[in-house]
């Protein structure tokens, strides 16, 4: 089945990917982000935060976006 994946890492990705039935959000994160720390990302399914063990469904929209973006003078 296919899900739409939005991934900030690498070259940047926003396209449909093929996954096997029963794939969880955590498994997809590991496949796509690898060694990246989950705490550095906001992980959402269909624009909503989700548990790591949520099983993905056909057509889901999954995004891994950066967190804690901050700048300062000092």
């Amino acid at each position, binding site marked *: 089945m296919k899900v739409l994946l*939005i*991934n*900030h*890492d*690498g*070259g*940047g*990705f*926003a396209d449909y990917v093929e996954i096997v039935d029963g794939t969880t959000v955590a498994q997809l994160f590991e496949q796509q*982000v690898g060694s*990246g720390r989950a705490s*550095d990302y*906001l992980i*959402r399914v269909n*624009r909503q935060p989700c548990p790591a063990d949520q099983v993905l469904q056909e057509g889901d*929209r999954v*995004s891994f*976006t*950066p*967190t*804690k*973006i*901050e*700048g*300062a*003078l*000092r």
Partner: protein
Amino acid sequence: MLRFSPTAWAKLLFLRDYGKTEVGGFGIAPRDDLLYLEDVQLVRQTCSWAHVAFDDESVADFFDQQVDAARHPEQFARVWVHTHPGDCPRPSQVDEDTFSRVFGRSAWAVMFILAYEGQTYARLRFNDGPGADLKVAVGLDYSRPFGGCDHEAWKQEYLSNVQAQQPIRITSTATEPVVESPFDEEPTDEWLDNWFDYAEDDDNVKGLH
């Protein structure tokens, strides 16, 4: 060279100068020219005069909106823009930490800083292979078509996204829209009239005569 369209540059100056805090956002580039910024867009953020922090949910919403607009992450999530007060655009340790942690896993990224007095800093980082950091020049590019200014839309974008946080040395940490602060209003002589009205009422000045 990192190039801005005249419209994007005018918008960034407007956003920098509208309030009294730092602001930040993402540069938006066309697919065929990733170092040419045709727009700068804010996300919701909490700011003080020397700090800006993006709201994580708003960043995710921004990604969704940009993908819905048929843009690729390289076009909207590679140029991190923020401002500094004063005349120093050099990145702080906080800036460097964010640039490494957030943009260190992307193929490339740019950190761009605009100081209040106009100085700029731009650094292009390649993370693939051995990696490299290059300071890049910044300029305006008039060679492509560009739109006009839209101060009202920019103002609404600012008001919708920027929440000013009181400086730490003040006890309150509450946030509120920048321009709704009474301290941002133009000074008037209304207070003087109020004092005369108050003094003319005998009940208010009993015991003072």
